[in-house]
């Protein structure tokens, strides 16, 4: 589903964010990218959704070379993946329903389809009955659920999560992890960057560890260390 082949990404001429990274993620996998801040976790996610372009090496997503993709194809690549962030990136002037609907609206889905899909996914993430709330009327955990609903409403092949539990207390974070696990069970490939020991150790999934841009460990059913 995702393959990085000797990928190097520099910011400017000095800072090397990712150095010669190679790994494969199969369809339906759940992968943790772990390591301290600045180790290159986020950059790898940004290379996969083509917010960044690799300086060397190739990034493959669903059989397509992302690096060589023309700009005009990038929106279609992104429709096959959902993104979840530490700071949720919700639109504060829109309600819960509108935030999720927005993801379908901007890719041109018809209204009746939006009206059907959004309640289903809000129900899935446990926000039924809170459709008309605004983000500032929700707890952090609830806001993250909205952002997961928005990422998942289009039934993407891949879910990219960048520190999704970073702003949440342990119990709430656990709930979010349960949700991501559930989404993974539907066959969606999940790649999650985190430095949260507890969630990694609790899940016992594949762990790719980064240190200053270099992959130092790639382990099935790993722990954080």
């Amino acid at each position, binding site marked *: 589903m995702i393959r990085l082949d000797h990928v190097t990404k520099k910011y400017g001429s000095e800072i090397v964010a990712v150095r010669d990274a190679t790994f494969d993620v199969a369809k339906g996998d759940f992968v943790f990218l772990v390591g301290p801040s600045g180790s290159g976790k986020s950059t790898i996610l940004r290379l996969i*959704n083509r*917010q960044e372009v690799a300086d060397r090496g190739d990034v493959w997503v669903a059989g397509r070379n992302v690096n060589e993709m023309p*700009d*005009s194809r990038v*929106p*279609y*690549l*992104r*429709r096959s993946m*959902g*993104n979840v962030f530490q700071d949720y*990136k919700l*639109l504060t002037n829109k309600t819960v329903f509108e935030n999720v609907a*927005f*993801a379908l*609206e*901007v*890719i*041109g*889905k*018809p*209204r009746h389809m939006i009206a059907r899909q959004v309640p289903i996914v809000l129900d899935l993430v446990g926000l039924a009955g809170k459709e008309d709330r605004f983000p500032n009327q929700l707890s952090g955990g609830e806001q993250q659920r909205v952002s997961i609903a*928005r990422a998942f409403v*289009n039934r993407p092949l891949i879910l990219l999560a960048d520190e999704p539990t970073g702003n949440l207390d342990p119990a709430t974070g656990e709930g979010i992890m349960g949700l991501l696990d559930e989404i993974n069970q539907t066959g969606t490939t999940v790649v999650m960057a985190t430095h949260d020991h507890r969630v990694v150790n609790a899940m016992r999934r594949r762990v790719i560890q980064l240190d200053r841009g270099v992959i130092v460990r790639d382990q099935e059913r790993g722990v954080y260390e």
Partner: protein
Amino acid sequence: MIARIAYAFREMWASFRRNLTLTAAAILTSAIALLLVGTTFLIQRAFENLLVQWRGDVEMIVFVRSDATPEQIALIGDTIKSAPTIIDVEKLQYLDKVQTYEEAKRIFAGDPVTLSLLTPENIPSQYKVVPLTDDPALVRSLSEQYRSLPGVEDVALAEDEFQVISTLSRFVRTVTLVMSLVLLVVAVGLIWNTIRTAMFARRREIEVMKLVGATNWFIRIPFMLEGLLQGLLGAVVSCGGLWVLNSAWNNGVAGFKPGTGISSLVVPSSYLSTVMVVLLVVGAVVGAVGSAIAASRFLDV
């Protein structure tokens, strides 16, 4: 498809209302720029009218020396009348010194120095000649003939006067055109800035849109519509201004005596409508293009 169009218009309207001050500035600037463009068109057309009308009843003017004897003046008149196939004898007009002085007062109204040198005593009198022929060469050869008559000071041909007028009209046209072009650029800049501000205010939204896979065109179109609306509103204002200006001018011109040439500086209302349509199109295009450029810059992520 309908959902997309409805979306684009909703977004355009929301953004339009959010930045009212900047929007008003952009609209006003484009209105002024377009008003100047329109005025250029009208002036150009008016000058053309003027030239056309002069050509219609061409005048050759034979200036008679102020010290010419009455016999000499009569001889000149008879000579002109002696070619009735070339000259329209009916329309031949003689202005004596007093009449010529009255006319000069108007011609040199903007040039008091020249006027102060003239008196009803030293001014030449003049024969105003309307030729029947369309052949300028024939008229010119006649003028050479008249020039050699005793008592004739000079012969002026309207044909030569045209050059002055067309030079003047070209000058006015160039000045207004340059000014309106500069203002148009300013208008594009202001619309560009308004759109950029609007996009900056919504950068979070745009970021999310890009992440969930909205195409650049989908993001760009509401902003382009907003720019188009600004340009179009500017054009509507400028059309109103042009109409007021033109009506005022026409009313003013109606007060002048016919035959002074000024009264011909009037454009037909059909031409005014054409100019207005042009302004509306230019306004819309300028607005859309300005905002498209601004939007594209912002979408480079």
